[in-house]
């Protein structure tokens, strides 16, 4: 279990520190890279929490997809080449206060709730000590759930994904070829 502790602290530190970089850096490329590293850390935490399939999905979809999409967005929307793409900052005081307030509320709730003593969580710990923990991969169980108990959610998610991607592809067309699309969307 000691290795678990080391890995947990390492992944947690990577996640939070990289998120700090992603949030503080005004250079958009640095922010994107910070986000990438932070998402890697979250994938490690998923793996430690026994969610192996989700860890892989996190790396494939977030790190391989969304971060690359964001970097494409940065590339396509910066006018001046040869200069680092930077973001402006507004409302710094209000934003910091709001974020600190939310953090304070979350931490207070976390300290007071005592989640580890909740009956079903304590019970789950005992069951796992007595009987066998469901060892091995979660892939089979997740697959059965997705085409069984959660089939409707699965289908709705598929539909939403299709619609969103078609819509995105339609909207992202460049308006250079004026004939292809009316200039104003009405």
């Amino acid at each position, binding site marked *: 279990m000691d290795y678990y502790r080391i890995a947990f602290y390492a992944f*947690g530190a990577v996640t939070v520190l990289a998120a700090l970089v992603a*949030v503080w850096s005004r250079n958009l490329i640095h922010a994107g890279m910070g986000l990438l590293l932070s998402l890697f850390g979250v994938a490690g935490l998923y793996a430690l*929490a026994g969610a192996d399939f989700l860890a892989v*999905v996190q790396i494939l*979809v977030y790190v391989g997809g969304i971060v690359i*999409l964001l970097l494409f967005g940065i590339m396509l929307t910066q006018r001046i080449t040869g200069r680092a793409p930077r973001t402006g900052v507004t409302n710094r005081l209000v*934003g910091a206060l709001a*974020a600190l307030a939310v953090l304070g509320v*979350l931490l207070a709730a976390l300290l007071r709730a005592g989640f580890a003593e909740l009956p079903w969580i304590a019970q789950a710990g005992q069951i796992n000590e007595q009987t066998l923990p469901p060892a091995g991969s979660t892939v089979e169980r997740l697959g059965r759930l997705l085409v069984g108990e959660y089939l409707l959610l699965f289908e709705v998610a598929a539909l939403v994904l299709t619609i969103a991607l078609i*819509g995105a592809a339609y909207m992202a067309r460049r308006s250079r070829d004026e004939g292809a699309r009316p200039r104003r969307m009405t």
Partner: protein
Amino acid sequence: MTSAAAYLNGYLLIAALLFSLGLFAVLTRRNAIAVLIGVELMLNAANLNLVAFAQFDPYRLGGQVAALLVIVLAVCEAALALAIVLNLYDRLQTVNVDEVESLRL
């Protein structure tokens, strides 16, 4: 798995930090893509909570299924938001969210 409960607060603490950082980015950045980075951080914080609690429900895995759905919706959101940002840049030559003031371009 035995001492998973001991780490639960650690997961929740990391998630709370991620969420606050994401909120800070959303509120203070001017560039739309930096705002999106903040949104992704907040979504990940929520997912981390779901996965952390799903450890204690190892047979039904409701939390992990919910986290999968959140990832799918995050993909939709990122793709659509990027398309909107590209459109904005095409029409207004800016992607600063505080300079975009009209819905109809």
